[in-house]
């Protein structure tokens, strides 16, 4: 359980990002409240340095997000490579 000053988020990776990371989903807990997406990405880069070198956009709770947005407990954060559907 997270205290009031800590949050947990779910991180989803897709396509080439999931392949490179070897994982499609991560749960990150005990994060500081109001952590920004930028700061979350900095933490993820420790485990997945390739994230510094490949392009992606970020969705928060299934909507495209700015990287200065503050996260809330229970957020779903998705890293989306350039789309190629159709």
């Amino acid at each position, binding site marked *: 359980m997270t205290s009031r000053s800590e949050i947990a988020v779910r991180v*989803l990776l*897709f*396509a*080439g990002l999931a*392949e*490179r990371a070897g994982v499609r989903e991560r749960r990150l807990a005990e994060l500081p409240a109001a952590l920004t997406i930028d700061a979350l990405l900095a933490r993820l880069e420790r485990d997945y340095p390739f994230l510094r*070198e*490949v392009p992606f956009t970020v*969705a928060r709770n*299934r*909507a495209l997000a700015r990287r200065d947005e503050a996260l809330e407990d229970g957020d779903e954060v*998705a890293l*989306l*490579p*350039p*789309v*190629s*559907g*159709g």
Partner: protein
Amino acid sequence: MANEAAATPHLTRTRIDVDALVARVASVEAGALCTFLGTARRHSEGKEVNLLCYEAYPEMADAAIAAIVAEAQAQFAGARVAALHRLGDCPLGEASVAVVAAAPHRVEAFAACRYVIDAIKARAPIWKQEQFRDGTAWVGDPGSFRPREGG
């Protein structure tokens, strides 16, 4: 996954039934029907493709396609649109995406159909993997080539 299929009506893991899509939008008031099918091609930038495989962020992709369809219907007079994208394996020659647009007149039917396929390709969180003889790669992701295992 029947549950997923029900929750994401614009995505399917089985062959696209174009006639069923047409039946959803056609009416005796719509004199024009424009259909677009994207199909898996044998060649991509000179390399021979054996199979395509599509992955999506399903909930977000489904919501994106629903929003795009609504935009087209609001923008083009009298247009009714249905769209469906395939996920998972898509054999050569089969449709990976289908858009059908019915309207009283052809200008709006063409415009609505074109708007929806362009927007799906630009905005829906869906990714295409090409399978070659010697490995796989995600389209538009230059460093993603992975040699075939055991090849």
